[in-house]
């Protein structure tokens, strides 16, 4: 196959994070606990993956306050959305292509 799949997204956990966030309408942010609930990950594990995605510029993390309680809000950046679209397209073309295993 031509180009390798985006290594930032091409890992079970981060693919799940990005896929879940991609279901959110653009311009919306999701709270950390709800994202955690959707993904059924531990808070620590999710934080690690979010940091990697943030470092790549795929995810934007906003810390804010609701009254006294701090809240963390997450969304895909425009770049993240594009990367996810490219990734899905690449996966589709792998599946449509000659290589039936399509691994890595």
């Amino acid at each position, binding site marked *: 196959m031509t180009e390798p799949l985006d290594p930032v997204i091409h*890992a079970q956990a981060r693919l799940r994070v990005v896929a879940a966030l991609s279901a*959110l309408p653009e*311009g919306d942010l999701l709270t950390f*606990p709800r994202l955690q609930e959707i993904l059924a990950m531990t808070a620590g594990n999710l934080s*690690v993956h979010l940091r990697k995605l943030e470092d790549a510029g795929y995810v934007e993390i906003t810390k804010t306050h609701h009254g006294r309680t701090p809240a963390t809000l997450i969304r895909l950046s425009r770049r993240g959305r594009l990367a996810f679209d490219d990734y899905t397209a690449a996966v589709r073309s792998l599946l449509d292509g000659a290589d039936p295993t399509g691994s890595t």
Partner: protein
Amino acid sequence: MNDSDVDDRPPSAAEAQDLIREQRALASRSISPDPRTLYWPWSIAWLVGFGCLYLRFGPDDQVLVPMPEWLPLTVLYVMMAAALVISGVSGARHARHIKGDSQVKGATYGFAWFLGFAGIGVSAGRVSDLLPPAETGLLWAGLSVAFVAAMYLAGGALWGERDMVILGVWVGVVNVVGVLVGPGWHSLIIATAGAAGGLVAGYVAARRLNRGS
């Protein structure tokens, strides 16, 4: 090393595609209210409320079931108020974990429902006493259903929900036909065709959401 190493394993293309589909469906279900809670309370309100209206103010001034003149409209409006609260609470509860554009849209849309019904109530209330009871019923009924239909269209446009747009058109058209045919018939048409439209739309939208498409 950290605990994320296990799921750092790259998936195969097929696995990746399944993962994406599952995760998106799961996320959509988690961030959207169950469509049945948005449609079905209205269907039930119409079925019962317009059912009563039909039985008391049947076509050609027939009284199919004797009951006080004020009762059917009261039942209808109490049930519609309940539907408004149930669908509103369901929408708001799901919006709690989402911030941003949708939150503003949702709040504005919710407010539009209350404002619209307030306007209808005040206007229809003012002229009600001037009309014969059957026409009074038709005025309240026709206005409220027309407003609900318009709000379905607006909601469908806001969230890109095709089912909601189709339901809005259906309810709007059926309402106009009913009002033209006259008191009694209007109640019967909305209690059956209108309510059925909401039941079908809720069912279809819920299935679509669960499938994640």
